[in-house]
């Protein structure tokens, strides 16, 4: 859904599109996504394969877990060195690495 052309120019484009700016039947939502579907009779059927499941890694409780969102500022970030132009996106390099790590060379 896009606002009408007059709302896309001048000062109106700085305004947020709300449900008051459009005709009825417009559902803006809250960006959470649906977890089921509406039934014919006004109910709601939850589809469990769409319900979010959050898997928390067990390592997070481990006192030995040392990873933080930050890296020390004294550690200078380095650019990766790759042979081919594709760099880290080279599938041949991926296969080669996989073969190496399978222990057969």
């Amino acid at each position: 859904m896009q606002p009408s052309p007059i709302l896309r120019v001048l000062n109106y484009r700085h305004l947020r599109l709300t449900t008051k700016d459009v005709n009825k039947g417009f559902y803006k939502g809250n960006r959470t996504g649906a977890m089921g579907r509406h039934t014919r009779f006004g109910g709601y059927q939850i589809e469990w394969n769409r319900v979010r499941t959050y898997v928390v890694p067990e390592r997070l409780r481990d006192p030995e877990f040392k990873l933080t969102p930050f890296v020390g500022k004294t550690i200078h970030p380095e650019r990766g060195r790759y042979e081919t132009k594709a760099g880290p996106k080279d599938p041949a390099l991926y296969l080669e690495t996989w073969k190496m790590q399978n222990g057969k060379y």
Partner: protein
Amino acid sequence: MTNPTTFTSSVRCVVHTARSQRTLLASRPSIFPLPTTQSAASFSTSSPHQKRKTRDNNRLRGVSPLRRTGPREPLSVSYDPLPKPADYKPKITVDKDHGLWGFFPEQGKLMNTPEEDGEYGRAWTANELRQKSWEDLHALWWACCRERNRLATANAERSRAKMGFGEYETNARDDVVKRTMKAIKHVLTERYYLWEDAYELAKQDPEINLSGKGEAYTPLYEQQEEDFLVKEDGDVTAAKEASTSQKAAADNLVDPSTIPASKPSEQAQKL
């Protein structure tokens, strides 16, 4: 209906006043002769019940806190001692290991000072995260979520209690955490696309068996050996054991969380 007791008391009262008037009259010095019943009453135009007003309508007239007069009317006080509140404080048992403590920097500490929050490094770069395994990235993502939860809690509490400074440091720290999370997503997306491309490439690779039966990877020289050399069964199994032990050694060689960024990519990627 008149109560008999009140009736008798009012009768007594009337009789009493009549007697007292008579005695008063009798005790007066008899300068003037007693008026006879035929004499006229003294003339007066004022009504007999009119009284002179000595007070105004101010109910609090004369009440002064400066002179400590106290109130005009008696207060209802009693000599009973005042009850005292009981010395009772409910004991709340708190789980020391509860997960909600993760919303705070330490147990019993509401939030960090701006100086403490301002101490942080830089964000992870995508190149550094390329060396990390899936487990590492998964755990790092959740560590970032934890950090952001803690920062959001501090911000909410700061605005609620109007504590003042510290929002700038918290938000700047939050931006760095978000940059790390962005790099994690970048690396995982890139890895998935790379896997798709490598899968297509593996279809043409004679060394790789994608059927799902048997060894996924057989090097060319092994295939040639199998073709041209006739080996004993024991030797073949020994060679297989050796290869599996080599593989296990390669897996245990480096902990993925300790791989520095400068090393070539040796992440545990499996097809």
